[in-house]
């Protein structure tokens, strides 16, 4: 039984231009390791949306990735404001993003739905005032 490979990224909360660096790194790591193209695509898109959310909503956060022969597992943790109504936040088109975020091409209310869409398993926990944890798994 081989040990899972673990990757960890810190997403700074104040720099929108750098959002996406972690998912780009993951994508190229997965390519180099020979993961299937469709799994790479799903994982990197889901993580990219997650990274954008960490920057625009949570003031940054941590990403923990675990790679095994069975799955690409990604956990996103933040200590941001949390999500009061997860059901509402999961609806396509619902967004609390500012006009400034929208002018940057995001905040269309597709972030969380996209993360779920591209994950085979998706779990979200959030406490208002304490933060949000999201687990996204792409199965191989």
């Amino acid at each position, binding site marked *: 039984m081989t040990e899972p490979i673990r990757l960890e990224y810190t997403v700074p909360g104040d720099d929108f231009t750098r959002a996406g660096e972690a998912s780009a790194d993951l994508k190229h790591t997965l390519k180099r390791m020979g993961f299937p193209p469709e799994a790479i695509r799903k994982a990197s898109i889901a993580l*990219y949306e997650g990274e954008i959310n960490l920057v625009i909503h949570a003031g940054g956060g941590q990403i923990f990735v675990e790679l095994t022969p069975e799955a690409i597992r990604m956990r996103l943790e933040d200590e941001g404001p949390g999500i009061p109504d997860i059901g509402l936040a999961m609806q396509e088109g619902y967004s609390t993003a500012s006009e400034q975020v929208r002018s940057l091409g995001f905040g*269309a209310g*597709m972030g969380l739905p996209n993360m779920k869409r591209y994950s085979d398993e998706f779990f979200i926990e959030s406490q208002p005032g304490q933060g949000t944890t999201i687990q996204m798994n792409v199965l191989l």
Partner: protein
Amino acid sequence: MTIQDIMQLLPAELLTADARLDTQVHNACGSDMMSDVLAFVKDQAVLLTGLNNPQVVRTADMMDMVCIVFVRGKRPSPEVLELAKQRGIAVLATRRTMFSACGILYQAGLRGGGGHD
């Protein structure tokens, strides 16, 4: 259609000098909302956009796109161009509006590639 063809049809200027212009492309999408591109795009090679920031290149990279066309005379910053070069993405700029640029390329055979196109 090749990237070279897109340059001639629009017309558009090439901003990444060493890009491969003979790459074949069949599908494109036009959007200023990157979340929509991430949600609805599949196997499109060309992104037409009026949005001008590094996330355009990152989105195109995530979707394995090979060419970005900035419409409405938008000129990306050197940092954006450098990121595109690193990712091997050709960057073009045209003075056409989004509607006209998409129309010209559609008429010339480029398709949306989504389920309703």
